[in-house]
């Protein structure tokens, strides 16, 4: 009897205690970029010089690349190194958290490097300063000339740890380099790191080149150029430099793109005023016709799972975006807004389709869901087109042209990037004018 009474009493006290817990809902915060301190990497005293790399400066250089990467995202605010209290040689061992909190940093990157026997060893640590604990620690070994890539890989790891999504720093962008007057442009294929470094030119500029696209492995590039005065789709191996015409089509082929598994190329083939979409298997060389319509169907792009294709077509009278299954069935129109839609590209995440829209003499880069809902125009300009997704689906790179004056003077074409939120629009610096960018997937997977 007594026991039961005790149980009742306990139950009632617990009941009351549960009611007394205070709950406060926090539904807002600040959207400022996260303050992060990137301490220069400590250079081990045993390090040796390697070719033209000044080993003593390498720690600063690596941290500088990481800082620039973070700054470009708009999500992080790398703090000024002059404000750092703790020196790198001590910081990489055990940071004095209070010193870093003093400068309002919330995260800290420390590390050290060593060049010995022709090999570069880099290790870094990411610290949560509020919790005073390590969040991630990784070491890499590579050839010293790869130090920039190491910096990009470190940036990717930190980005992923702090945002939850994969990074996009260890990537390249292929584009069409343009020089000369507008009326006599020389166009070459060029490739660079996503931050604009290490630019290399892949073609000489004898022929016009357009719409280069990376294969998923980043080793191959498909693009459009001229063969016997006909626009044709080409395939280029970046490592070996070999190139070939894709397929033996009795007409013009253009707007090529790889399938997500890299085994097929999808493109448009135009003949006698009609344009349809075709795929070609790169192993068997078998060609398959996907669309069969009297209209102009072009700019095909696979969904990341390879099951669907988005493309544009003027079958409704105006150029609009459509989706269909990868075998060409179940065609659906998904764009219904005012204006003309073009260059649809499926996001690597699979949720969005980016496009170019022309309305009332202005060009817009926008995104919509894959069912056509939720259209958002991210940026407006005089002339801009050809969006390409970063491998994590967060950014779009595209090109923008300015009006030219008399005789083509004053004309420029530049690469720009923008976040899918519509913020953080910025120009990507290139050695020459540039157009038709295509973003590679991550080089280190």
């Amino acid at each position, binding site marked *: *009897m007594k026991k*039961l*009474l005790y149980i*009742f*009493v306990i139950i*009632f006290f617990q*009941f*009351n205690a549960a*009611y*007394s*817990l*205070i*709950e*406060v*809902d*926090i*539904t*807002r*915060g*600040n*959207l*400022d*970029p*996260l*303050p992060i301190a990137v301490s220069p990497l400590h250079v081990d005293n045993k390090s040796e010089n390697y070719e033209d790399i000044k080993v003593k400066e390498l720690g600063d250089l690596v941290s500088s690349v990481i800082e620039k990467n973070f700054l470009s995202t*708009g*999500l992080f605010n790398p703090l000024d190194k002059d404000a750092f209290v703790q020196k790198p040689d001590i910081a990489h061992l055990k940071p004095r958290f209070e010193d870093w909190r003093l400068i309002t940093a*919330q995260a800290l990157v420390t590390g050290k490097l060593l060049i010995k026997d022709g090999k570069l060893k880099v290790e870094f640590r990411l610290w*949560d300063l*509020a*919790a005073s604990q390590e969040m991630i620690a990784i070491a890499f070994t590579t050839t010293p000339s790869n130090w920039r890539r190491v910096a990009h890989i470190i940036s990717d790891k930190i980005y*992923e*740890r*702090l*945002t*939850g*999504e994969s990074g996009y720093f260890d990537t390249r962008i292929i584009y069409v380099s343009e020089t000369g007057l507008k009326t006599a442009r020389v166009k070459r294929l060029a490739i660079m790191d996503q931050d604009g470094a290490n630019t290399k030119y892949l073609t000489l500029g004898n022929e016009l080149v357009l719409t280069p696209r990376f294969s998923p492995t980043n080793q191959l590039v498909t693009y459009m150029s001229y063969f016997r005065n006909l626009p044709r789709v080409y395939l280029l191996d970046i490592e070996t430099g070999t190139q070939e015409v894709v397929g033996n089509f009795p007409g013009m082929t253009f707007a090529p793109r790889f399938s997500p598994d890299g085994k097929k190329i999808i493109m448009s083939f135009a003949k006698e005023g009609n344009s349809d979409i075709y795929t070609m298997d790169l192993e068997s060389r078998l060609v398959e016709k996907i669309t069969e319509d009297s209209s102009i169907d072009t700019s095909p792009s696979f969904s990341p799972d390879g099951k669907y294709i988005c493309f544009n077509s003027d079958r409704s009278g105006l150029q609009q975006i459509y989706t269909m299954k990868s075998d060409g069935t179940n065609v659906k129109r998904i764009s219904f807004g005012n204006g003309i839609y073009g260059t649809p590209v499926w996001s690597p995440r699979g949720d969005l389709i980016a496009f170019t829209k022309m309305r009332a003499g202005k060009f817009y880069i926008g995104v919509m869901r894959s069912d056509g809902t939720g259209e958002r125009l991210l940026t407006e300009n005089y002339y801009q087109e050809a969006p390409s997704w970063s491998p994590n689906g*967060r950014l779009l790179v595209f090109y923008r042209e300015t009006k030219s004056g008399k005789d083509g003077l004053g004309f420029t074409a530049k690469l720009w990037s923008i976040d899918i*939120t519509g913020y953080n629009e910025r120009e990507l610096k290139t050695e020459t004018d540039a157009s038709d960018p295509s973003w590679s997937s991550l080089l280190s997977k």
Partner: protein
Amino acid sequence: MTKSLIYSLSFHAVMILLTVLSLPFMIRQPVDLPPIISVELIQISNKTNIPFAPKARKVIEKVKEKEERVVSEQAPPSAKAKEKPDRIPLPKKQDEKKELVKKKQNPKEIKPEIRQASEFEKKEIIDTNQIAALIDKAKEESAKVKKNDKKLTQSSVKNSFATGLTLSEEDALRAQIFGCWTVPLGLPYDDNLLVRIKLELKQDGTIGKSEILDHERMNRPGQKFYKVLAESALRAVRICQPLRVPQTGYDKWKTIQLNFNPTEMLKG
């Protein structure tokens, strides 16, 4: 049979007794309070950090221009302050509280910063919703002075059972954490992004113990975004400490749960 009946009746009697004792509203009659105005308001204002001061100042300046005395406790001259208790009719039951209030109304005891903070009061006095919350606070103070007086007001009962903080205290805490929480901008807004953190606080508002209630979710595959969000929320709380908590009623707020949900903000 008889024995069982006796047991049954006894149990039921115990149940009823416990219910009556446990649910205060069954025995405690709500006190029908007139809309009293208390100098306790000053203390609450001092602890509150709601950013409506400029608006309040405008109201105050407007009132000053009209040379209307809203309440005497705002006026610095001591002579006027002394007049105030006579002007405010208080019910007989509140005599003890009145004495307490009178003591605190003495302008000599009002620190400069408190006097400055009291500018909020005129706004709050005009805002009837705020008055209710502030009266609650005054009641809590009175109840503390009268240690053995168990006659809690209806409002204070509600506060201790439902939230344990007055609206202004809750707002102050919320506003403080808003400033400390850097929301990760890369989060998808269509996921379930509620992070619940339970805190055990010390009396000075610093954190004794913190726990993410759904911490097992952090390490599940495909929950990277949740992990990032949870870490950012925990970081915010740590950066913010000491939290702005009331000076009294520690037992009520020593354990507190913060529910972080950025969904609306990410949707824009």
